């Protein structure tokens, strides 16, 4: 009966994440916004594959019951791995920016324009 609840959570998380990305000035907080966005999309994928009362899709010794779809889980796993790489690269950029500029305030990272 609460089948739509995860989707409501997905949309809420996406909106929160976009708000953080757009309005926050601290680079680390912006990155956290991106991480939240990633999690929201992962939750969306997992929700797509969920079947009510479903069991894990492992065929060995499986009881006769509905299984959840394995494909979205595989997609989510891939997406999580990509997300780790993304976060690592973003944070390493933040380290260099902090070293070179002495600030991670977005309003101060403006040397390109000059």
């Amino acid at each position, binding site marked *: 009966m609460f089948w739509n609840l995860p989707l409501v959570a997905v949309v809420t998380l996406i909106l929160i994440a976009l708000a953080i990305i757009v309005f926050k000035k601290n680079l680390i907080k912006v990155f956290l916004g991106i991480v939240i966005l990633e999690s929201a*999309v992962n939750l969306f994928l997992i929700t797509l594959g969920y079947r009510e009362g479903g069991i894990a899709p492992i065929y060995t010794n499986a009881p006769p019951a509905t299984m959840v779809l394995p494909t*979205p889980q595989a997609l989510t796993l891939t997406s999580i791995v990509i997300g780790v790489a993304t976060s690592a690269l973003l944070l390493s950029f933040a380290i*260099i920016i902090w070293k*070179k500029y002495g600030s991670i305030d977005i309003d101060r990272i403006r*040397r390109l324009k000059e």
Partner: protein
Amino acid sequence: MIPAFIVTHSPALMIIAPLVGAFLSPFICRISSTVRSIWVGGAMAVTSAIALILALNVYSAGTRLYVFGASTASAAIPPDSGGIPIRIIFEIDPMSALMLVITAISGFAIIVYSLSSERSHTGLESYYTLYLLMITGILGMVSTGDIFNFFVFLEILSLASAGLIAYRIDGGVAVEAALKYFVLSTIGALAILVAIGIYYGQYNALNMAMIAARMQFSVLDQVALVLIIAALAMKCGAVPMHFWTPDAYSMAPSSITALLVVASQASLYGLFRTVFTLYNVTLNAATVGWLIIILGVLSMVVGVTMAIPQKNVKRLMAYHAVSQTGYMLLGVGVGLAVLGNQSLLDAFGYMAMEGGIFHIINHAMYKGLLFLTAGAIFLRLGTYNLNRMGGLGHSMKWTMVFFVIGALAIAGIPPFNGFASKIMIYESVFVFNPLLAVIAMVVSILTLASFVKVFHSIFMGPALPEYSEVKEAPMPMLAGMGILAVVVILFGLFPGIVVESLIAPAAHALVDQGAYVAAVLGGV
């Protein structure tokens, strides 16, 4: 002549070769600089050769299907899968083959150039690792038939590109540019992932042919279409999402900028693939066609007007890249706007699309050439500032020749390749809507004006005393530029042959959704 094994497995080998090259280079490149050059040059040469063999095979024998994890292509749909192609499939039709040709030529020319241009820098093993990963990403994006696989390769490409844009930290400014690019492309990629989720939720499939066959064009599909168009138009640098382009293009090393041009074309390919193959006639062709035309015209006009006042030669060229992307969007957009109406398509639609697609390959060649000349000038002078250059025609004669070839090609002057594709766009777009053709011509004239100014301030005038020590660029850099220049001239001299053998099959493959679907679902 070529072993059958290589031809059969070329789609897989094409991805394996740069991956092996990339992941072994951190170890092998430490041995010595000669070994490094041979290793990375060899890896790229092998990759290019396999990609060209595959492209040749596709052009002679038709669309190729390669099913990973199965012994034959006929196993695309396993008997117990309920009619759904569950394996990852590479589907290379003539449009993909064209992109493979672009990547093979540019990738090879640019790595020859890099061998010399980056010689004095540190961290070269990472540079080449990321370079080969970029090549992997591009090749994968343009040949995959699985939409989630497309997302994975897109992310490989974004990660590698962002690392390379920041490669010369340059007081943190390059990192700032890379940050901008990477935040945008991550958000774009997540938008694509949401769209993939929407397709999966509706059609239970990730295979593009399967989704195309089941496409209903419901409200959810429209949401997915908007997400994908927005993300990929941003990645290919179309106005109004172009603001990362000048920053990233100007801060990356010039060799990488030239490769970023190819990477943008791969995103453009993804955009066309989505619109034509996934949706085709189910969408409201006139509306989406006009949307792409308007994006194209905006990119052309905004790009060129922003380019004119620039002082930094690479920023200027980057804005021109935005402007040239507009031509491709315009040409293919016109083709899309008349999709489903066979008589109009025959009258000018195909020609417009051929012009747009021809412009993709031409742009990759001459814009790559221009960025490489900018890199050669930077290597000798240490500045991109146009006001501090002058009189280089005396000392850098070959660079000047290559710059002139690139500049005339981008301005659409015969007999160079830019003219060949632009004339096709003008003629066909004029039939569709004369105003659009007029705008395209005006933009072309402004491009010429801008490059005449650049040429004059870099190469003309008396030799400046502070640059009296300046020598010609080293031989490998000239060789890299030479490869691209030869292609520019050949395509300009024989446009008829190129259009007939490379471009027209690509345009027809893009329009013909049925053939793409049948290649997978028909069990070919």
